């Protein structure tokens, strides 16, 4: 199949061996150095006007997420209302980028955010394990798109990736991208915690981009290690280098484990100093998170009023 990439690197995906050679020819990642760089960016001190800017930017980048077996239409409607107007006491607070739900909740979510700029993202492809036949995964995607999903968050086949079957992973992403059509942007989740090494994360990032991902995303939030400043830094380096080679800009979405404003600001600093302001926009950078939003709102209120309000002054959904 392998027809996705219309850019300078198209021939890389011509065969299993060319793809493997390309991915294994990417520069290695020194884990100590990568983590040291991420930690050093984490010491930036973001105060006053910069903090206010970062908080509003972070709110606008949240993919407000509920991915539970216990999700109900009521829960999803509440989430949608919150995404559209995160702080009912302050209309200047920006809306979030999207709500992120399971495919069967897409229609409900779509109705809940109707008339607002908030997008509906749906996980698909047998999220979170991705262990289903391709036909089932594609049906999952088509249902979600048909129900009105603006964005699809797919998971890659980690088993195939770890077995070295890169072309299988690639072709699956290409197929999902086709199923998304032009209606939906595709986010490709690597589940970095299962890929385990930074070299693998770099290879997966390039694999995803070569296959036509619109976004590359760290994780599902369902495993022990999710988004970290280091793996997000590495993926930002990948999108930076990919654009330099192909001219195509790809988004990045860290997801899972980002719970506080302090965390979110550290990620934004990493974005700012790795890829710069071209990515400081919710079209190109997202946070996959649920509890983060309330902390952002509390910090926003603190900046505006000079005092902490407390969890009873933000909505619990």
């Amino acid at each position: 199949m392998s027809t996705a990439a219309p850019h300078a690197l198209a021939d890389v995906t011509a065969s299993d061996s060319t793809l493997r050679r390309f991915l294994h020819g990417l520069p290695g990642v020194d884990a100590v150095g990568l983590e040291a760089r991420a930690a050093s960016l984490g010491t930036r001190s973001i105060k006053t006007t910069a903090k206010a800017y970062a908080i509003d930017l972070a709110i606008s980048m949240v993919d407000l997420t509920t991915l539970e077996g216990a999700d109900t239409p009521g829960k999803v409607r509440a989430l949608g209302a919150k995404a559209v107007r995160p702080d009912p006491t302050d209309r200047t607070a920006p809306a979030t980028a999207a709500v992120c739900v399971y495919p069967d909740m897409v229609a409900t979510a779509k109705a809940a955010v109707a008339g607002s700029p908030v997008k509906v993202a749906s996980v698909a492809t047998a999220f979170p394990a991705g262990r289903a036949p391709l036909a089932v995964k594609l049906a999952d995607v088509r249902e979600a798109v048909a129900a009105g999903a603006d964005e699809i968050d797919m998971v890659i086949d980690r088993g195939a990736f770890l077995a070295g079957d890169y072309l299988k992973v690639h072709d699956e992403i290409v197929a999902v991208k086709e199923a998304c059509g032009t209606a939906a942007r595709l986010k490709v989740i690597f589940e970095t915690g299962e890929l385990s090494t930074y070299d693998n994360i770099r290879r997966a990032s390039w694999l995803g981009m070569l296959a036509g991902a619109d976004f590359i995303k760290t994780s599902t939030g369902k495993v022990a290690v999710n988004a970290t400043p280091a793996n997000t830094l590495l993926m930002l380096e990948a999108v930076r280098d990919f654009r330099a080679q192909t001219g195509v800009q790809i988004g990045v979405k860290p997801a899972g484990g980002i719970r506080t404003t302090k965390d979110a600001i550290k990620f934004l600093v990493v974005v700012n100093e790795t890829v710069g302001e071209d990515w400081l926009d919710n079209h190109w950078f997202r946070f996959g998170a649920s509890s983060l939003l309330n902390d952002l709102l509390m910090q926003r209120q603190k900046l505006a009023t000079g005092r902490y309000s407390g969890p009873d002054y933000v909505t619990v959904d």
Partner: protein
Amino acid sequence: MASAFEYAPAPESRAIVDIAPSYGLFIDGEFTEAADGRVFKTVSPASEEVLSEIAQAGEADVDRAVLAARKAFEKWSALPGAERAKYLFRIARIVQERSRELAVLETLDNGKPIKETRDADLPLVAAHFFYYAGWADKLDHAGFGANPRPLGVAGQVIPWNFPLLMLAWKIAPALATGNTVVLKPAETTPLSALFFADICRQAGLPKGVVNILPGYGDTGAALVAHPDVNKVAFTGSTAVGKEIAKTVAGSRKKLTLELGGKGANIVFDDAPIDQAVEGIVNGIFFNQGQVCCAGSRLLVQESVQDELLDSLKRRLSTLRLGDPLDKNTDIGAINSEEQLTRITSLVERGESEGAERWSPACELPSAGYWFAPTLFTNVTQAHTVARDEIFGPVLSVLTFRTPDEAVAKANNTPYGLSAGIWTEKGSRILAVANKLRAGVVWSNTFNKFDPASPFGGYKESGFGREGGRHGLEAYLDV
């Protein structure tokens, strides 16, 4: 880099440090004026503001201080090692407790960013005292035979680039082994050593064990020439080191010298490029490049030169130069007008010899001493900027084709202090490291320090080792 995300100023408060309008010499546990009443001023290199007026030690003061150290030596050297350790542990803990204050002080007097004094200098200072405190009662087991004896009075002269850290490197092993100390801090950065004198008093250190004599080169010359000094330790320029070696030649003084360098950072084509870029930046722009072991020569394999230089230039354009007390500052001020003049003239020489100069867009503050991060490309071994130690934020980029050529070029310098190797191939790291004539070889990192690791030079970078078990030898009669 212009960005929508502009970091607001985030200055560390100066209120935590109380700098007196004047300081005396620290001799025999007391602050005292210089015998001839001379004083000099120390300024903040970031603003040229006068911070304090400092007594300037002359020959008579050197006599007094060495005499005080000699008197203190008898009792101090006779203390059981475990007792000396208690003082060193106490000093280490006080340094930790006062670390924020000392970090702000050091940044004010030296001009380096608070990020560095807070995260590098001060933690290493405390670690050094903790480390050598641990040795004080274990000298029998250090590999020098039973009951190794101290030398006596150590005359120590330290530079301005890491004022308190170099003090720690000198004083901690000297005291742990039972010596007493007369130390001369650099004339542009005397304050942290004087605060350290206060810490010695706070720790209850016996009088005369540590004496601090601020002053210029003549003070240092008098100290190293003093007949009752048993040990001379110097960190600084190779030119001064040679003078000191001549002075002590023919005497029974034991000498260690830690001098200049022109470190090569070697990047092979299979290197982890993004981390190599960080390592190059850390190697030459840490402390504005005013580091004896700086990676001031970048040797890059020709096949990745363009890619690496593009990445490096992009990275340099994100460096934040400015107020050293701002927590987001990466590049602070040059330590003195004299040093700035030296850097400027060497850079001009590099340009006139045909090397290609590049700096990121970078606004320099109007007051104080500043130099923008600078790259030289098209540099050959024959260029001055590839041979002379610049001791500033200036990187010379050279290329190589094969590992043998990299090694030959890296070693083709009168210096031999540090080197770096960047490759993902472990066997290459070992093979190249074995051939490099440098006291420290870092692999896939740069400018990493640990008190347990010995540090020192080959060739004109000096002799003797500081740090680790090896660092004890310089202060023992073995």
